[in-house]
């Protein structure tokens, strides 16, 4: 996000609320009533009347209570995969599949290296065929831009195929 945002990447905190209270396991720390979680975001000004906001949250399942927040009204999502911690990504992939939100999965190439074969990753995370799976470098502006373009492509083709009725709501329309 820092590599493409116009502003210095900002971080805010979400406070756990009653809604989320069930998600965070409080049993080990009974004195604890709030949890703070960082949420990153950045901005790209498309034109004077249109801004693209990028929101980033941790991907582990226990932070899932934040995902609804950033996904509501989003054009699409990008699940960034660290192949050293594949297990952590499964929940996020599953989430997007179920929410029926346009998304792509991007394997981050740390130090330009990808440790797994893409087919293996697709299999391990159970990513369905139509979902793009790409390799990118989160530090490279161009690479991040291209990854976002992949997501937008998915969103666009989905919007086009849903043509009649611009307000297609949350209806599930799987191919």
């Amino acid at each position, binding site marked *: 996000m820092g590599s493409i945002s116009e502003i210095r990447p900002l971080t805010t905190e979400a406070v756990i609320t009653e809604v989320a209270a069930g998600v965070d396991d409080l049993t080990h720390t009974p004195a604890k009533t*709030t949890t703070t979680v960082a949420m990153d975001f950045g901005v790209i000004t498309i034109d004077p009347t249109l801004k693209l906001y990028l929101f980033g949250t941790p991907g582990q399942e226990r932070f899932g209570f934040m995902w609804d927040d950033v996904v509501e009204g989003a054009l699409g999502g990008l699940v960034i995969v660290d192949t050293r911690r594949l297990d952590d990504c499964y929940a996020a992939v599953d989430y997007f599949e179920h929410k029926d939100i346009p998304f792509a999965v991007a394997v981050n190439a740390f130090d330009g290296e990808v440790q797994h074969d893409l087919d293996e990753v697709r299999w391990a995370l159970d990513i369905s065929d139509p979902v793009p799976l790409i390799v990118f470098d989160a530090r490279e502006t161009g690479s991040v831009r291209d990854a976002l373009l992949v997501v937008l492509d998915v969103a666009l083709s989905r919007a086009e195929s849903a043509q009649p009725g611009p307000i297609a709501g949350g209806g599930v329309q799987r191919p």
Partner: protein
Amino acid sequence: MVAGEPVPRETAPHGAGDSARDAPGRPEAADQSPEPTGPAEPAEPVEQPEPVEQPESIEPPEPVGQREPVGRPAPDKHPAPEEHPAPEKPSEPVEQPPPARQSAPPEPMGRAPAVRPFLLTAGRVSGSGAAPPLPVETQVVATPDGLSALRSLTFERRDIVAACRRPQSVAELAARLRLHLNVVRVLAEDLCTAGQLAVHVPDTGTVHDISVLRRVIDGLRAVPDSRGSLPDSRGSLRDSG
């Protein structure tokens, strides 16, 4: 209920009783019913449009230090020792560019708040009423009323209205002002009710609006990469090394 003075919820000091009990030698703590949030005001010009853009290093001197002696530590219920260390950043997806960057980027969460977030909202959380919480990308902008009332506003409310001279998202506001997202949501709703802030809830229909999507795609394509070149084709996605 008989019509009367509306109870000013915001100023009902949460836990004021507790702190009075803690400091019996200072009865004024309970009497003057201070803003519950009442951090000592940092010396900072009122009109400053973007109060927190400066890096940590030139922060006003130790607002935290000023707060603590006043006898308003976190309320009794939260004696937790773990409150003071800065909340640790959860391991997050890779985005932090490691060493190459110039020095260490300022840690945005370095300062642990002496005032607990829910004190700023008098215990309210967003979305607890009838309405769902404001979406993170909701645009907020100060109204003329809000700007003219700026001097009468205090602390976070003033900061929010001042920062909203330019429209921005709730999330952006929270990050710039170093406030919790959900605190900003609650306060923005309050300020909107008071007519001091205009809140533009996003139109979810745009997600399916093809023309918007095309504009975003075209706009993104115009973003040059680090070497200044534009995307040539879809095929270039594989790591170019």
